């Protein structure tokens, strides 16, 4: 359960056209290639003989690859994935808060999924339409799809799935996003291939909310046992599953989008990031999921014979939520001072070695159509003045929590603490237990470093993580004006005016909010050199085309 906040529970959002992003690039000498074999062998020998000086590359690190390998895979084979298990209480129920994230995409489908630009595209629903007042949505279901147990998929399965999410007893993380606009009584199965949703309040972009990973479709009435059976319509069917343990899925020959390339996927639960990385380097697994490797580990992986690095561009949204309800940060002037004081470029350089873009305290990715460009300005003097105005002329001290849960956390916390010192902030970095980070620290301690996956559509993102009272509102920031702007955006049918509302919302977050967003970093994914056609963006993982050489 413990990682829920960080990992499957809190994947944050999706990206659009990655090529348009401006990257902070390496200084030129760093791109000098070093033959990887020799680096590894010499490195190993160095450790052996304690003659390390002879073996390191004095030229510094090697450049990491930009793209995962593409190519013609051989048909079949077993793909082995190491993942950090959510908890020993994890389940295959997609709507539950403790779901086993990696299995979901393999076992199930949603009504809609997101393309690389973050636009909803058909999955189990083939098309949809909305009434002019954005109150009545009609989804048409794909015909001829069968669940793994042979039952045909119909609109009542889709209705049941949504009803599950809307059931407060299940405590689904998506409940807070969907409940403001719809209730179970508004779900109507018009015929086996038509689902009509009558909303309680207007929403002009409902499909994007249904692309969340809690919305994977399960068979009608299966809520009691789906957590163990995992029966869906996805490209793989469940063979074995054990919470917090090992599991296996087998290719589902009758999948509507075609049979997957590999015959089976084995999932292993390895909690320790270092152990996962070692397993990859030693060739025990092919892929590390939900693991952003730190720069050093990435270097070691890249230098190894069996493994390499793939990227999910800007896949990690790093945040420093400062609890708006805490005595330290309830004063907006202190929050503003902190934002003025820190240096995002420095954090991006130290913590992520420039692999990403700076965040400007705006949770929306610069590639998103709704993005509001408000460049972050650093002004320690003004920060100091604001602090004095707030009653702290001699400086302000607080604790910043970090953990080994993600390797970027600690360098990010440390460089943050260093950059705000000029403005009179005295920050003590506190190392907390990784396993209870999201139960004991997240939303409890006044300030901490954390991350989300990028990949959430903008409406989902703003409502789930910033709206007053949302279960994922990690900074406990509550702003009525912000909430009403979001309501206006949901009700707005005109796309341009809707974007205008979302931009107003972003401005409020940047200027008033309690969340600091220093950067979006590339997720450096450890992957075997045998794997081809790995593709992952946001919460979309391509289980069908991934294959082995």
């Amino acid at each position: 359960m413990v990682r829920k906040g960080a990992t499957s529970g809190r994947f944050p959002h999706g990206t659009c056209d990655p090529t348009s992003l401006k990257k902070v690039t390496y200084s030129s000498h760093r791109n000098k290639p070093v033959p990887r074999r020799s680096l590894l062998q010499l490195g190993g020998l160095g450790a052996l003989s304690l003659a390390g000086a002879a073996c390191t590359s004095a030229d510094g690190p090697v450049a990491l690859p930009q793209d995962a390998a593409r190519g013609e895979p051989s048909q079949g084979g077993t793909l082995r994935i190491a993942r950090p298990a959510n908890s020993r209480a994890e389940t295959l129920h997609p709507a539950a808060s403790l779901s086993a994230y990696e299995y979901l995409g393999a076992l199930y489908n949603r009504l809609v999924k997101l393309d690389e630009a973050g636009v909803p595209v058909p999955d189990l629903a083939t098309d949809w339409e909305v009434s002019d007042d954005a109150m009545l949505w009609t989804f048409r279901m794909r015909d001829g799809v069968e669940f793994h147990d042979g039952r045909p998929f119909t609109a009542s399965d889709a209705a049941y799935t949504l009803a599950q999410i809307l059931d407060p007893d299940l405590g689904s993380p998506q409940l807070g996003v969907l409940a403001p606009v719809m209730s179970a009584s508004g779900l109507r199965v018009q015929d086996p291939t038509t689902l009509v949703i009558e909303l309680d309040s207007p929403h002009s972009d409902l499909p994007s909310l249904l692309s969340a990973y809690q919305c994977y479709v399960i068979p009608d009435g299966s809520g009691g046992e789906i957590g163990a059976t995992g029966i869906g319509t996805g490209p793989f069917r469940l063979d074995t599953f054990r919470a917090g343990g090992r599991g296996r899925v087998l290719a589902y020959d009758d999948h509507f989008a075609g049979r997957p390339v590999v015959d089976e996927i084995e999932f292993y639960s390895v909690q320790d990031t270092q152990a996962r990385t070692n397993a990859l380097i030693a060739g025990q697994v092919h892929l590390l999921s939900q693991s952003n490797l730190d720069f050093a580990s990435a270097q070691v992986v890249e230098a190894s014979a069996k493994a390499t690095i793939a990227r999910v561009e800007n896949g990690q949204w790093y945040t420093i939520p400062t609890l708006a309800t805490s005595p330290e940060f309830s004063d907006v002037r202190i929050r503003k001072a902190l934002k003025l004081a820190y240096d995002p470029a420095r954090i991006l350089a130290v913590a992520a070695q420039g692999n990403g873009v700076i965040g400007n305290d705006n949770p929306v990715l610069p590639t998103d159509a709704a993005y509001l460009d408000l460049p972050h300005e650093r002004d320690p003097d003004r920060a100091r003045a604001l602090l004095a105005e707030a009653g702290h002329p001699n400086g302000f001290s607080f604790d910043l929590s970090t953990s080994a849960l993600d390797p970027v956390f600690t360098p990010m916390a440390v460089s943050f603490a260093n950059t705000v010192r000029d403005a009179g902030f005295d920050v003590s970095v506190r190392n907390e237990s990784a396993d209870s980070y999201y139960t004991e620290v997240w939303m409890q301690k006044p300030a901490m470093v954390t991350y989300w996956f990028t990949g959430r559509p903008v409406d989902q993102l703003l409502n789930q993580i910033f709206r007053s009272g949302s279960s994922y509102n990690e900074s406990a920031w509550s702003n009525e004006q912000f909430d009403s702007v979001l309501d206006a955006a949901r009700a707005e049918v005109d796309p341009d005016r809707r974007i205008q509302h979302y931009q107003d919302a972003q401005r409020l977050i940047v200027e008033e909010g309690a969340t600091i967003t220093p950067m979006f970093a590339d997720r450096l994914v450890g992957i075997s050199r045998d794997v081809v056609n790995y593709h992952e963006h946001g919460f979309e993982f391509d289980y069908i085309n991934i294959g082995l050489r």
Partner: protein
Amino acid sequence: MSTEAKTSEVLDSPTEPKQKRLRFGGNGTLIFGLVLIGLHLLIALLAPVLTSHNPYISDPDAALYGPSATHLLGTDQYGRDVLARTLYGGRYALQVTFIATTITVAIGSALGILCAHLGGWFDMVIMRLIDAILAIPSILALLVVVTVFGNSIPVIVFAITIVYTPAVTRVVRGAAMAVVPLDFVTAAKARGESAFAVVLREIVPNVPGVMLVEYAMRASWAVLLISTLSFLGFGANPPTPDWGLMISEGRMAMTVVPWSVLAPIIALSTLVIGLSSAADGLSGRLGVDRLSKGA
């Protein structure tokens, strides 16, 4: 055979003078140990003089570089100077070790001597409690304490005290037991002196050898324990330069920049070797058989 019998029996033999020189240590071992400890203390004190690099300052443009003229042992993954971090790295461990060991040996000795002197129920209850605490894995006790109260220095000192005090108590009690039946103590008791006076005047001066050896040995264990805690993420807070933390942070990059891990390993090991050698040498010199008491 009761616990007392076992302990005092074990203690009997080494007090015979002819065996003194048979232990590990002679003066050579003691001096070797003291020199190593002194060296580490000096380095920790003089670190700012020995290196011009700041162990906290990261330089992303110089991350993961091998040894060079500017960075003699290269840089770690955040571009910090490995040598500077290693030189400063003993400060945290030495500080915590010194405080924790002093408290542990003080409390343990006091309890042990009291047990030996008072005997009876007091002794019974304390010894049973100590047996029970020793039966619980120390790392479990440590993790529970640190999880409950956080990882500040006072808490870690407290945790180490809990883990090591019972063992010290047992050993010192054994040593004091050997003294209690001796004539001068019995005579003092016969003179009708108060328990406190007897303990203070007659017993305490006769067990400092054991206490001193205990001190050196517990210190060496404490250093290991503190670095293990840091390694597991329960000890020093980043970016504190601490050997355990450095090993933990750098172990993945070992194939790329081995010195970022080897330097703290060498530093840590030499300090522990110094403390163990000092303990060996002391026990040889003072005729204290510490090895057989284990715990």
